[in-house]
């Protein structure tokens, strides 16, 4: 192989491009760039630093490093740091998608970090609590009787009879067969939803507690005459009387929303300092 053809091969090597490019940048900076501060080219690896390296090794391997191993860790660390600093000096972090995303992530993390560990004040928790009562109220509780009919006409006829007061003692005998509870006592809203469905719940919510038969109202199964006896919508307990579990839930909620909020606020503040034009 002639020297020329070998040179041509080399010139196709990306590594060669990289080295030549690097050299060019280096020369450029050496010529025009800021003079290198000699201090930034000094590197102290203190005892504490070494202890940290030793600890990191131990976490991975489950034992302390030998002297030789620690020495290698230190050399590895020094090598990485030297290359890292020089990479920064050469501006290799600019326009690198990964670095860019990583830095942005760090900003987000910093914005949220404080909230990760902060102990919220009682006042902060209370404010949050007052702002989100729906998260802490117990489910509403329902007490009602119901008679099921497969057809609307039958249901309408029956409700007229019942309204006239010819109350039979055993209303359960008037129901068409269906595997649903005929009497419901203090059933939570969620369970009414699970067992009777959304449509039924919506219709029951339109009724006022009353000891008379009303309806028919429709559910996913068919038609129901309902005697709504009680619907208790519980209010959230006063803040001072919250159980430990509820307090923990509150703190969880506060933390999650505060982290999200801080990230958003942090970004908004920075963003406002920019004038941004997006070409059509």
């Amino acid at each position, binding site marked *: 192989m002639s020297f020329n053809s070998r040179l041509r091969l080399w010139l196709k090597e990306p590594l060669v491009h990289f080295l030549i490019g690097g050299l060019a940048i280096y020369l450029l900076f050496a010529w025009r760039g800021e003079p290198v501060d000699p*201090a930034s080219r000094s590197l102290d690896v203190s005892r504490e630093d070494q202890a940290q390296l030793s600890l990191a090794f131990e976490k991975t391997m489950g034992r302390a490093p030998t002297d030789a191993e620690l020495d290698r860790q230190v050399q590895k660390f020094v090598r990485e740091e030297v290359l890292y600093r020089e990479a920064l000096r050469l501006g290799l972090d600019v326009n690198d998608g990964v670095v860019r995303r990583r830095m942005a992530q760090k900003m987000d993390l910093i914005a949220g970090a404080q909230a990760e560990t902060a102990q919220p004040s009682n006042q902060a928790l209370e404010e949050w609590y007052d702002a989100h009562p729906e998260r802490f109220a117990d489910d509403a509780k329902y007490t009602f009787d119901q008679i099921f009919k497969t057809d609307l006409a039958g249901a309408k006829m029956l409700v007229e009879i019942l309204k006239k007061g010819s109350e039979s003692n055993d209303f359960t005998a008037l129901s068409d067969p269906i595997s649903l509870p005929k009497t419901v006592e203090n059933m939570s809203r969620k*369970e009414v939803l699970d067992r009777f469905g959304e449509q039924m719940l919506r219709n029951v919510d339109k009724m006022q507690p009353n000891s008379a038969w009303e309806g028919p109202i429709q559910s996913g199964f068919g038609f129901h005459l309902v005697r709504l006896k009680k619907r208790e919508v519980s209010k959230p307990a006063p803040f001072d009387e919250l159980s430990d579990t509820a307090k*923990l839930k509150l703190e969880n909620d506060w933390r999650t929303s505060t982290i999200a909020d801080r990230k958003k606020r942090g970004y908004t503040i920075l963003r406002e300092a920019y004038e941004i034009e997006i070409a059509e």
Partner: protein
Amino acid sequence: MRQKITKSHFAKWALVGAASLALAACSGNADEASSGDGENTIELAEFPDRPYWGDTHLHTDNSVDAFGFGVRLGPEEALKFARGDEVTATTGAQAKLARPLDFLVIADHSDGLGATRRLYDAPRIGVQAMGDETMLRWYDMMHESPEQSQRAIGELIMAAAQGNLPDAMNDPEASAEATKDIWDTHLDTLDRYNEPGVFTAFAGFEYSLMPDGNNLHRVVMFRDGSDRTKQVVPYPGLSTTPEGLWDYMDAYAESTGGKALAIPHNSNLSNGLMFELTKHDGGAMTADYARKRARSEPVVEVTQIKGDSETHPFLSPNDEMAGFGVKGWEIGNLPLSAKTNNAMRAGSYVREALKRGISLEEQLGVNPYQFGMIGSTDSHTSLATADEDNFWGKHTGNEQANKERANMAQNLGTRVGRFGWHYLAGGYAAAWAKGNTRAEIFDAFQRREVYATTGPRMTVRMFGGFDFTEDDWDGDWVRRGYTNGVPMGGQLVDKKQAPTFLISALKDPDGANLDRVQVVKGWVDPFGVVREKVFDVVWSDMEGERALNGNKVPAVGDTVNRAEATYTNTIGAPELRATWTDPDYKWGQKQSFYYVRVLEIPTPRWTLYDAKRFGITLSDAAMANSVAQERAYSSPIWLSPDPEANPKAADTDKE
């Protein structure tokens, strides 16, 4: 200025470390009720009075593949979503369940728990320093674009299937520390979200054994709170065996006093290996092995996003309704590294496994495959959705943001053979329990009083006994069922008379009407041959328009409007009930089982909802499969010969 590798640099690291410790400490203080198994924390019903709904198979960003597929929601968001809160999906849209779930098992893969997230978050130079080209390539692919990331995970799953993962991902000891950290933090989170009586958060993981790409995955689920579960870490799947897993579970029970069970899934992608007639190593099945398997694996997941494993038309040629959710999945194993042939099907489907079980019981006196059935999602989006009109995709790459997902080739990055429309919307597990706590729901699983649905929340009851009658429906039939018989999952002993079953199926209150209720019977005939038969037991309008036509039940009809993706409940019934006695019973019949299958009227599949919502045109094949009859499968009730009347069984029955 003199620049040191400063102490403050390390001080910062130390601070972060201390901060995360502090965080772990403060998140660990859930109260006693929510951090244990929930026994004695709430008032319980006398009998299991309602089904509790859950998903036992959900992946979050701690799963090696889910993260790579793009999900950025963690266990906390998954728990919030399951209990009914609104969360923002990874791809940006708001997501909420119309009806919250009652329980959830987050089942992240034990192999490489958190590994892809660690890889992704690592500085590139760090990955480079590991000196593994494959890892570096995956790293770059993950950062390049969502498509490339999915491709990287496809490669990763393939590598896992072929047993050549990079060492850095495959070394259990090297990753043990990281696993332990993630696991402990995760257990604290679960305790914080576990609210006895309201919402149950189970600890669990997925065991992902996959020899040559044949799926032998199990979900492992724990009954206990973090005081016990922190004493172990998830058991690795790669290069272990199912027996190793059962030993691990036994050791857990022994050393902590807790309980764990394993739930096999996607037997349809196991190329016949999930339910073998032999032991896992190919040796002859023994009574000990059978006993151990049955004890460790009381339930299987029969239906989920990656297809339905009840039965295959090849195995059940006389079952007109066989083959739901089979298309696409039937052609090969999980990564499609090997095709499936018909000889493999028997070991891959659940009905056939139940049959193999009773046949083996005839020989060994023990049934290795005496299991109940549940459905789950296997969603990799942190979102436990199973409804057709709320499908969030198998993984983040086919969340709703991907409008063409139904038509696209979708096989884990390799894009061969399987399409988006092959995915089912996912199933749910229903547990008949006396209350919503870890202990009550877990125990329902253990006694197999559970059932599977392909998503709709039908209420399915089944009691087996010998003196049930038509009149039982007039009174408190649930009490009769429990006191005079056994519920689904139970065991009857032959009493020289045909068994009778009380069966009730109530439609999903917000869903479609019911077409019919069937009983699937499997039994060993006098010649030792295992057989199956499907009985139509009760169906809508059976006295009227749909009166029997010869032996055949006329089809229920179809109200689906293909253009609008709607249906009406003008056909079918809200509830179907029957007192059913086995007409084929003969005294001296050998081992047998009976389970219930409930069919809904035809409804639009998620693909049709997509077509309407996003204005896309489905491919011809997808369109032809855009309507289906969703279903529920009960756990079986087994009927065994009386050991007194059968000396052989009596001998082997003594343990």
